[in-house]
């Protein structure tokens, strides 16, 4: 499924927690997630992230902006891990942007944070 279509479909189903796509100043794709990354949402976001990886060139970069993510379950962390694996397989750099402390702490508990490149846009 093309990214635009996947995005549209997801946002229609989640009007209160839509995913916004934008470009970074360097022209890289930034997907800003919001709301709760629990089991249902995570399952639905997965194809969207897969579509984003498909349109990203090899050696390219994708940012996942997590600033507005209010809650993350283990399935949500699993989604990030799976996306990271897919990204590395395609030689794409996946960067987590503005990870809130509550999300970071769950990833730390799971011992996965070190596998991710995390950037803070405010620095």
């Amino acid at each position, binding site marked *: 499924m093309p990214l635009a279509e996947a995005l549209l479909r997801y946002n229609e189903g989640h009007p209160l927690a839509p995913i916004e796509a934008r470009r970074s100043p360097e*022209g890289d794709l930034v997907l800003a997630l919001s709301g*709760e990354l*629990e*089991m249902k949402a995570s399952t639905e976001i997965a194809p969207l992230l897969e579509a984003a990886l498909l349109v990203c*060139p*090899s*050696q*390219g970069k994708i940012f996942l902006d997590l600033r507005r993510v*209010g*809650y993350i*379950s*283990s*399935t949500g*962390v*699993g989604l990030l*891990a*799976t996306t*990271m*694996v897919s990204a*590395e*397989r395609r*030689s794409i750099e996946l960067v987590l942007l503005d990870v809130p*402390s*509550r999300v970071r*702490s*769950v990833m730390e*508990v*799971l*011992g*996965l944070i070190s*596998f991710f490149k995390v950037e803070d846009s405010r620095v």
Partner: protein
Amino acid sequence: MSEAQDGVTASRRLEATAELCRLFAQDESEKANIAAIELLRRYFQAEGAALFYVNAISEYRFCLAGTQFPISLAEERWRACIGPAHAGSTRFGPWAIPGFGETLSQWISAAIYSSEGRLGYVLLGRSGSGWTDEEELSLSAIADTISPIVGVRLARAKEEAVRREAEQRLSENEKRLRSFFEDSRDMIYTADSEDRLTSINSAGLALTGRLGKEELIGLPFSAIALNGEDREYFLRRIRAEGYVADYEIVLARKDGSTVFCIETAHTLRASGGAVLEVQGIIKDISERIKSEGVLWRTNLELAEANLKLKQTQGLMVQQEKLASIGQLAAGIAHEINNPVGFLKSNNAMLEKYIASIRAAWKEARAAGGAAVEAIDEKSGLASLFDEAETIFRESAEGFSRIISIVGNLKNFSRVNEASDFALYDVNRGIDNSLLVAWNEIKYVSEVRKAYGELPPIHANGGEINQVILNILVNAAQAIESLKRPGKGLIEIRTTLKRDSVRIAISDDGPGIPESIQTRVFDPFFTTKEPGKGTGLGLSISYDIIVTKHGGRLSVESEPGEGTTFLIELPIAGPGPNPSDHG
């Protein structure tokens, strides 16, 4: 029977009846039945007396006068025991209560109450003289009088039995619920409308690492959650929907460790809808999460290893190539060095000899007169000598250039001699690379250099040269691809920034289409015709500049205008662990 006798009988009967009523009123237990039948036996001077009844909890029983305890019987046997009375006879005999007591010749009986189709009976037996009609009537009258009392007693006893049963059931229920709450392996808790804990079971204490309930009761739930905000989200949902199922929450134990849990909860609400209480069950899913985490980590590690393997593989291919080129260049340089050396030396000697010959000829001409002058004129020796001088000068210059090129080649090929970082002169490195690439450049492009004054930087010179060479060759090939009449232009600028040097190599070739600009650093990405490029050059360059040197390599291109590659290298060299960078 006389009237006086009648009066006495009636009075005694009344006494007996009153006594019976008193008995039944004072003692609500079945003991009253034993006392009652004993009283009747005495009153009627019977030899055998029995009271058959069904008690409040539907047990079929009878009391035999003279015994101390009522006896329970199966219903069938109970009915068999009171056979003739049950069959409606009020006077019968000889008869014995089957299995109980002796056979007596005369029996009278009366039903004492009727309830739900069941009757109670009084049976009185005598041997010898029988029962008078009066006695039979008297028994019937007493039975009629006490029947309502016995009925009320039975109803009350039944109510009491029902109440006791309900009480027992309630207490059992309470016990069951308490054991369900306390013995559950999952944490069960309740919290008030402010989300303060009001109760928690033992599993909850174990899960949160607390010793006593007093440590938790009254605390806000968020105090035992790793992220208070997660609890807020939970509360928003449960207040809106009334229940939350399978909500993941990480609990913070007292010792600082964490435990992954899943919670299902619902609310108790007041009639107005306000939440009175949250009741939740929390299950420890740490083990599941742990194994999932291990799986995710393994996958991530594998992916990372794969990526590194891919990068290393590409790099090794190129390094192998560079090594061969380097060895070849060094070998050729070495082989050329010696013959060029003696050619240069021969040339110098020859120049010296010719100069000596010229001086001798000059002397001969001065001394020789007209004939020598004529030979000089004819052969044009003066100009030949002049030309020879020019040739020698040019040859010497040529030899110097060859020697310089050979030196540079050796210098350039140092790429494979050592990967050690050393002080590196960027401007000189560019010149070396230009020299090596010159053959590719000279027919297609002018080169304009604008070098800034740069300090030596800490770098692997061989590798940086390789990057510059690669970009220069790409630039020349890009310009050539335009097939324009004149030459193109390659501009090389170096500038000093605060703590880095910057090299900009621009060409006025066709530029890179925007759609592939981000892919030029991809391994194996090439737009060149087959055989002209491996597609590894820029990815290797990227690895050298970014990964190994902690610098930056970027491209700016305007299709139709040209392309500029920007290299930025830290003067101090890469950080402590350059291979981990980027």
